[in-house]
């Protein structure tokens, strides 16, 4: 049986090959999901922790325990707490990066043994010790302390700030008033060195040495010796435990557990009189979990259609193979083989394919996952830090389920075929049956459901926005509706397509050439056999277009809005010492790569003492040179607005809502007030869009709900504003030559005190790196490529099989005197009437679905900063790719068909009929 199976498979090698392709892709996509999700989430965690460290300059997993020990009875307590803190890492099951015990004895008074005329009479300082102190410092003056006591004297090193603050000199010796050494003499301390941290950014220094002004560090041995002697009875001991967990080990899996445990341990320590500062990860993780859920939900939703498509492909190929093997199956049946035996044969075949594909698919999945991680836009990849991809249990689970699914889908058609005997087979061939979805009007039902979903979601657009702003993800029902819509429309198109062909047939019935006549009839009469391939083509093309539009639109929309909201390429606002301390503008000339710059004053003012509004003072000419504004946002060119402003020093431009809400008109005078100083201006125009301006902004309320807030903007001449209100801190807007590096260097070199800084290049990079966008782009790209492969394979397989099964018929045509050219012509016609028509209808459906659903889908991606009207992006290059692939497949198909037809011998073909 097994030998027979392999012979059978070898005989149908192209179909088997297609089954392999479909299966491998199915497994690969299924496997890539958990792999990518895990890796992406891990990266999200790492990115968030890193971002926190950079922005807050704190370790995201720092737990600070502190307590003061005042009396001896608490002696044991410290050791116990020390033990407990150390064991926390085991308790939380996360290793720590640093476990630092920082202790010092609170300020003690000492006097100089040899006072200098300039030095103060006494100094207060704290003898200190810190775990692993010596590993994290370097000595900049003097030398490191020696441990031990020499003639009642111990050695100490101090930070630069302690050194300066206390007017110390190297080798100064100080005498404690109240601390004796073991021999009852007053303890002497000698300052032998000055240290600083040996690395610029070292998490070890929770408190930077710069901020320590009275800590005298001594060796741990000395500290312990003193600690055990009598000095500690007279001093309060401050203890800090800094526990920094290794964030690499904080994962989505243990995040919840970590939070619960942390909460519990904070309470537990508090009961012991230890103050615990809540680690930053507590807040970070709660945000992250929301974000992670959103990302993984979105990725899942986006993958479903292509998985369904793959199943459909497998089903199609499997059915095709079965219909070719119908004769064999019927023969088996007639010779007494049970349906079960036939079923078993196909089950073995499916299992064999599933197992082999499972292994290959697993590795392809890993490759895909890496590709996903390097996608920056639709169909664009860059090489950059690779994603840490692992084969987890979850991955194998997904692979298992996918393989099972493929076995199910490929074996499913066998059940109906194995019931058929040769007699009923012949009977069936004669009957033209309507497809089940047509009999029950399922196509219209699906389309109706899709349209209903669209209608419903369109009406709830605002709710959708609010939901997303509160951390919701792409609504599965919305994406599902779009898929249902496409499927429904595709099936309805299958009703329409035969009608179009029939119409063509009727129109020229009398005059069609024999080959056109035959091909039209072939298309009409065998439409039930072609439904699947047509349906498949319609779905792949429409879904391909839809996916490409979704991917392009969400990214470009997010980028456009960001660029618009930032305003210029780079925005820099310096912190002025006071409002009149204007720094020199000329300094900015040295910025490399600067194309132009302009000053922009932004303040809050009141208009006619009634309405508060945002104010923007600009230099019209330079503003125009520095800022670009997308065409089509304003009724006339942006420059016309700037020219109007420049024409009159007292001109102002107002946002449109001044007119619609407050009734202002062009030519009206308005009084602008800032800090009690007024000036009267004339309205020269209204605008809906202005760089950085959004009429409605979503603002988070105190109770975490999100409400839309209306914004008003007044734009005036900067010179007038400065004349009226004097020069106030302004922003400097730069147009850069493709990179913001020049400004970064400028800020560093001149130690600029930055109050506000925006960099559009970095912002766009950030958007593209966002897991949500990256994953979406990656998955849609992957789906698109899979669609292209399936579309090509499906098309080719269908046609080759269709030709092979009709060789006898072509022999008859040839015997009747049709030339080979005429037969080829007939085949081209058939392709046009069925495949190309399907592709056209698919494209139409794809465009319709994109128009209607993409505006809703993109809400999930940029609800929080939608200022600009949405623009659907259909990149020509994507369509070119799609149709080029179809074109290539079409040509390859024609070449193969030509070869089959041209090499066909009439007499051989006719012999096929002699059974």
């Amino acid at each position, binding site marked *: 049986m097994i030998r027979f199976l392999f012979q059978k498979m070898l005989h149908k090698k192209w179909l088997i090959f297609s089954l392999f392709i479909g299966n491998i892709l199915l497994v690969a996509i299924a496997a890539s999901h958990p792999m990518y999700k895990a890796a992406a989430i891990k990266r999200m965690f790492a990115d968030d922790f890193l971002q926190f460290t950079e922005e807050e300059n704190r370790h995201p997993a720092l737990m600070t325990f502190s307590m003061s020990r005042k009396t001896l009875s608490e002696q044991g307590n410290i050791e116990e707490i020390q033990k407990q803190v150390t064991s926390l890492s085991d308790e939380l099951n996360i290793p720590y990066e640093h476990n630092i015990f920082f202790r010092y004895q609170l300020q003690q008074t000492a006097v100089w043994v040899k006072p200098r005329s300039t030095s103060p009479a006494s100094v207060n300082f704290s003898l200190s010790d810190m775990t692993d102190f010596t590993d994290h410092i370097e000595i900049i003056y003097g030398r490191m302390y020696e441990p031990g006591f020499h003639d009642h004297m111990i050695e100490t090193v101090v930070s630069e700030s302690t050194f300066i603050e206390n007017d110390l000199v190297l080798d100064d010796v100080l005498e404690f008033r109240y601390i004796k050494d073991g021999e009852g003499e007053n303890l002497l301390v000698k300052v032998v060195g000055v240290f600083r941290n040996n690395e610029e950014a070292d998490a070890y220094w929770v408190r930077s040495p710069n901020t320590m002004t009275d800590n005298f560090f001594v060796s741990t041995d000395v500290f312990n010796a003193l600690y055990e002697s009598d000095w500690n009875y007279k001093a309060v001991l401050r203890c800090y435990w800094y526990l920094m967990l290794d964030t690499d080990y904080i994962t989505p899996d243990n995040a919840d557990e970590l939070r619960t445990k942390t909460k519990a341990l904070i309470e537990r320590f508090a009961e012991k009189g230890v103050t615990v500062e809540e680690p930053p990860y507590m807040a970070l993780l709660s945000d992250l979990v929301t974000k992670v859920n959103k990302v993984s939900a979105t990725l899942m939703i986006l993958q479903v259609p292509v998985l369904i498509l793959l199943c459909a492909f497998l089903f199609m190929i499997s059915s095709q193979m079965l219909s070719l093997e119908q004769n064999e199956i019927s023969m088996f049946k007639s010779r007494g083989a049970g349906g079960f035996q036939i079923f078993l044969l196909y089950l073995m075949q499916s299992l064999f394919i599933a197992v082999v594909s499972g292994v290959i698919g697993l590795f392809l999945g890993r490759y895909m996952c890496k590709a996903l991680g390097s996608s920056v836009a639709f169909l664009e990849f860059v090489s950059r830090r690779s994603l840490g991809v692992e084969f987890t249990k979850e991955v194998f689970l997904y692979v298992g389920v996918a393989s099972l699914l493929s076995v199910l889908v490929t074996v499913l058609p066998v059940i109906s075929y194995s019931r058929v005997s040769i007699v009923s087979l012949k009977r069936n061939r004669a009957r033209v049956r309507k497809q089940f979805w047509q009999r029950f009007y399922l196509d219209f039902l699906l389309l109706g459901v899709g349209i209903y979903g669209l209608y419903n979601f369109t009406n709830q657009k605002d709710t959708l926005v609010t939901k997303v702003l509160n951390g919701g993800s792409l609504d599965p029902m919305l994406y599902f509706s779009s898929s249902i819509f496409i499927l429904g429309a595709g099936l309805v198109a299958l009703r329409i397509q035969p009608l179009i062909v029939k119409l063509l047939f009727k129109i020229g019935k009398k005059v069609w050439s024999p080959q056109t006549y035959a091909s039209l009839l072939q298309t009409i009469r065998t439409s039930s056999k072609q439904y699947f391939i047509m349906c498949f083509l319609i779905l792949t093309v429409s879904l391909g277009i839809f996916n490409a539009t979704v991917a392009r639109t969400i990214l470009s929309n997010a980028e456009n809005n960001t660029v618009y909201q930032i305003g210029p390429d780079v925005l820099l606002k310096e912190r002025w010492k006071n409002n009149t301390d204007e720094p020199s503008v000329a300094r900015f000339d040295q910025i490399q790569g600067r194309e132009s710059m302009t000053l922009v004053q932004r303040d809050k003012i009141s208009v006619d003492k009634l309405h508060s509004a945002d104010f923007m003072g600009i230099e019209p000419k330079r503003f125009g040179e520095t800022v670009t504004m997308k065409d089509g946002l304003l009724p006339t060119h942006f420059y016309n607005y700037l020219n109007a402003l420049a024409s009159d020093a007292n001109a102002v431009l107002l946002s449109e809502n001044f007119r619609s809400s407050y009734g202002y008109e062009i030519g009206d005078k308005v009084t602008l007030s800032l800090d009690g100083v007024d000036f009267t201006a004339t309205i020269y125009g209204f605008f809906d869009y202005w760089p950085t301006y959004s009429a409605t902004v979503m603002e988070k309320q105190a109770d975490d709900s999100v409400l839309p807030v209306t914004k008003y903007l007044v734009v005036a001449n900067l010179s007038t504003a400065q004349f009226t209100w004097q020069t106030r801190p302004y922003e400097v807007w730069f147009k850069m030559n493709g990179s913001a590096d020049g400004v970064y260097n400028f800020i560093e070199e001149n130690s600029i005190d930055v109050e506000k800084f925006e960099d559009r290049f970095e912002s766009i990079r950030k958007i593209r790196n966002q897991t949500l966008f990256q994953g979406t782009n990656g998955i849609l790209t992957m789906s698109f490529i899979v669609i292209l492969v399936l579309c090509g394979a499906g098309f080719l397989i269908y046609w080759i099989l269709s030709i092979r099964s009709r060789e006898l018929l072509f022999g*008859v045509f040839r*015997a009747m005197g049709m030339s080979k050219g005429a037969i080829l012509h007939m085949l081209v016609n058939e392709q046009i009437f069925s495949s190309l028509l399907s592709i056209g209808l698919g494209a139409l459906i794809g465009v319709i679905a994109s128009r209607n659903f993409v505006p809703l889908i993109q809400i999930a991606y940029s609800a929080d900063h939608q200022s600009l009207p949405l623009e659907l992006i259909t990149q020509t290059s994507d369509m070119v790719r799609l149709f080029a692939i179809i074109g290539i497949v079409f040509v390859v198909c024609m070449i193969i068909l030509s070869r089959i037809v041209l090499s066909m011998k009439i007499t051989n073909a006719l012999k096929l009929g002699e059974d």
Partner: protein
Amino acid sequence: MAYKELIMRANNITRSFPLAGGGKIQVLKGISVEIPKKSITLLRGRSGSGKTTLINILSALDYPTEGNVFFKDQDITKMSEGAREALRRKDIGIIFQSVSLIPIMTAYENVEFSLRLAGYEGDRKERVEKALRLVGLGARMHHMPQELSGGEQQRVAIARAVAHRPKLIFADEPTAELDSGTARHVMKIFKDLVEEEDITIVMTTHDISLMDAADRTYVMEDGEVVGNG
């Protein structure tokens, strides 16, 4: 039998096929036949005697290795492929051993299709209906081939072969899959065609009982004509 004008003449036809393992097999070993106009010529022999190969060559479906075939005065073995196709479309009708109807077309459409191919100038509908009535299928002309019995299908094939008024009809074992009653009916149709439509018929058979219907019979054995009459 009175002398009749010849419509086709084949001189010394040989045909060999290459064998898979090298070498070749000679199927026809120098056969000459003469086919008079308005007659029924029978090629009789057991299977493997070479009759199908011969009829393929006579009907311009295949080429001989050596020898010539004249249709009227033209040597069809020297014609271009296009001219041979035109010959098959217009002057020749072929009926195959097994049923060879176009499965996507009704009986009517099958017959009409041969008229389209031949570029038939007259009223196609009238001609198709006449051809189908001739074979006794006027009532079932709008059925699909699958809905017809084997005999009915063969009759449609005959109607299709004659509809465009070819000069010469070749039939390879047209009665092989039919019961004797139907077979006799088919032969009757052939006789009528020769009478009414000015047609010449060449057919192969291994059925001796049909011999009395023929005007001339060539008996073939192992690639050679071993007798005629």
